């Protein structure tokens, strides 16, 4: 994968309402992003994760022939799947999307120092752009699942798990080391809270 030349990166800076825009200077961030080598498009969105925000990404991918996406917004632990899907819908491999966490790790924790927060956000965007430049498409391969289950142990838990799987229509091998199933439960006189016979 080339690291210059063909790389066309789009950067999307999210205001998240005032959540980010309240302590990060988002317009400046867009300008900084535009100045980075390989970034051919940068824009500011009110909420990048919203339907209009995602539409804007899809449009930009088509319009600017983007082949890498950087979303500077919240933590990837929330919306990475959202933006990966958005990119995939626009025909881009989902692993060519990178997020810069400028909300949880920046705007929310440096609320009293907008200049420092903006500097930090700019670093995080630069870091994400550099990473994005070097990303390669990835493929999640699919493996066939053999249609049978092994259940190890024939106590109450193994019995129940085997029956539940078998009732779902799956073949089950229930392996028990003693000559009978029943396990420890079969040795109890009565079981609480119903006080009935265990076997």
């Amino acid at each position: 994968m080339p690291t210059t030349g063909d790389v066309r990166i789009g950067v999307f800076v999210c205001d998240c309402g005032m959540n980010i825009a309240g302590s990060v200077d988002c317009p400046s961030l867009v300008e900084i992003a535009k100045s980075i080598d390989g970034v051919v498009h940068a824009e500011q969105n009110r909420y990048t994760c919203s339907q209009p925000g995602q539409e804007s990404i899809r449009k930009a991918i088509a319009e600017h022939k983007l082949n890498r996406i950087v979303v500077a917004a919240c933590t990837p632990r929330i919306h990475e799947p959202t933006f990966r899907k958005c990119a995939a819908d626009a025909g881009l491999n989902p692993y060519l999307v990178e997020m810069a966490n400028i909300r949880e790790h920046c705007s929310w924790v440096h609320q009293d120092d907008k200049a420092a927060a903006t500097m930090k956000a700019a670093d995080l965007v630069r870091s994400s752009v550099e990473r994005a430049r070097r990303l390669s498409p990835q493929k999640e391969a699919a493996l066939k699942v053999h249609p049978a289950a092994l259940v190890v142990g024939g106590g109450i838990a193994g019995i129940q798990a085997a029956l539940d799987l078998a009732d779902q229509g799956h073949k089950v091998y229930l392996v028990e080391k003693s000559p009978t199933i029943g396990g420890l439960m079969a040795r109890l006189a009565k079981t609480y809270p119903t006080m009935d016979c265990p076997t």
Partner: protein
Amino acid sequence: MTDVRQHPNIVLLTSSEIEEVSGYVGNFHVRVVKKARYVIEGDCTACGDCSKVCPVMVPDEHQEGFSFRKAIHIPFPQAVPSAYVLDMANCLGNNPIACGKCFEACQKKCINYDMKDEVVEFDAGVVIVATGMETYDPTELEEYGYRKFPNVVTTIEFERLLSEGGPTEGHLVRPTDMKQPRRIGFIQCVGSRSRKRGNPYCGNICCMNTVKDTLLLSEHYPDAECTVFYIDIRAFGKGFEEMFVRSKEAGVRYVRGIPGEIREDQATGNLILSAENSSTGRVEDFEFDMVVLSTGVVPARGSEEIRRKLTLSKSPDGFLLESHPKLKPVDSPTKGVFFAGCAESPKDVKDSVTQAGAAASRAGILLAKGEVKIEAITSAIVRENCVMCGACAKVCPYNAIIPPDKAKGVYPSVIEAACAGCGTCSAECRFDAIEMRHFTDEQIMSQIDALLAEKPEEKILVFACNWCSFAGGDGAGTARLQYPPSQRIIRTMCSGRVDEKFVMRGFEKGAAMVLVSGCHFSDCHYISAVRWTQKRVEKLWDRLEKLGIRPERLQLEWISAAEGVKFARVMKELDEMRKTVAPAEVAETRRIIEEADRKKADRKAAKPQAL
């Protein structure tokens, strides 16, 4: 139990042990050894004619040795499969001169002394581990006299004495004189909740089991006097508190205090003990006809073997470690393997059934879908650089790397379906012979360079793992905990991915401080990868010291996803430390590392054959 026998989708293999499980999610291959039963299972009608003529008597395991069984026997009347089994270790002999009585008595001719163990092999897409538990053996607690005083029994022994299917058909007697005991003492937490002997954890079921036993006793033997010695009564389940109240209303005495010692009156076989009742502060003396030790629980024998065969982990208590204590409580860290029942932790019947349903449902998702997406973030061997040292295979928590065979010239290879993508192999490889997809050296190095391009001496470079410390940082943000804006985070999936050279690059580029942070040991998303993180950081501290760089400038912290507060605190502390690093010190560090790199390059140049 009979449903299992009758279910058309279940193949039941009893007297069977797992010999080997190979493969990975969706494609496990299983080898089972089915031990010879010496009775043809399908033909036996469980008429019992064989057992009647068998001359061998041995203590009956099912009855805790309180009665005898024959060498040819059925474990208990409701056993499934409903077939006799010949215990060959105790059988007099399989030739007619020695005995052969059962063979003659069996009209169906389903006894076969020459039966052999059988190997059964099959494929399975998923595995559910339900290896269960056993009760704690209190023999080591000598002060209670178990095995010395016959009238001191364990919970399970007491269950057999109460059971209608038990050795006395449900008539409670005590072992010394076969008389019905009137005064019965129960001692709770035997082998549980102790840091000194037995186990530190709570047995979960013992309180309610004792409450149940006292209710059974008060129902069947109105003159029985029960006393329960306890630390706390843990009656937390649905309907449990009500049972506890009923037990107290039935006249059962609950004494908060554990006796230190049990003595026996040799003349009567009665048991004498004293306990400090912490509710009254008084030491009281007691005499009982029988004492029940409410024993805790331990993982089943044999679960350790299964654990190794499936490359699972255990928590400090010895039970199997789940993938996540809250969000994936029935998944094992190995894909396609799930837990049901007490294999994972002590539980009662209801919780075991609940968890079994959950495990069946989780496993059923894979089976119903018929395919499983495997992780795109996996490692790949770069053969040109590989020296076949095998370090990668050694550190892989999933055994997902087939080790190299240097003699045969076979390179290591990655089983992609088993690889979870932690990147520990890549970080441990000193020869850059493993590429971690989506988290390549080049990608991470470029992030370090970008983050430290301006005013690096004012910055703290932080490596945070996706699942715990990065998430802990998210938590700090969500709670709006303010901390100084000096740190710059790089996310890796696991802290195990953090290569020594990443840390050195951070210092070379002028970072004032570097932090490596990951999950607490028990939370590691990649079984045990975090242990390698620790070893690597310790190695780095030595290296920094030797180079003349203050090791304190590299910090290691375990921060969980729930520890936003700790994350913010660590960031503040690091910022304080950062202020002690003067620009001159940073400049000196850069000079030291550049010089070391130059020397290394010179050495390489001097030995061109090594390239």
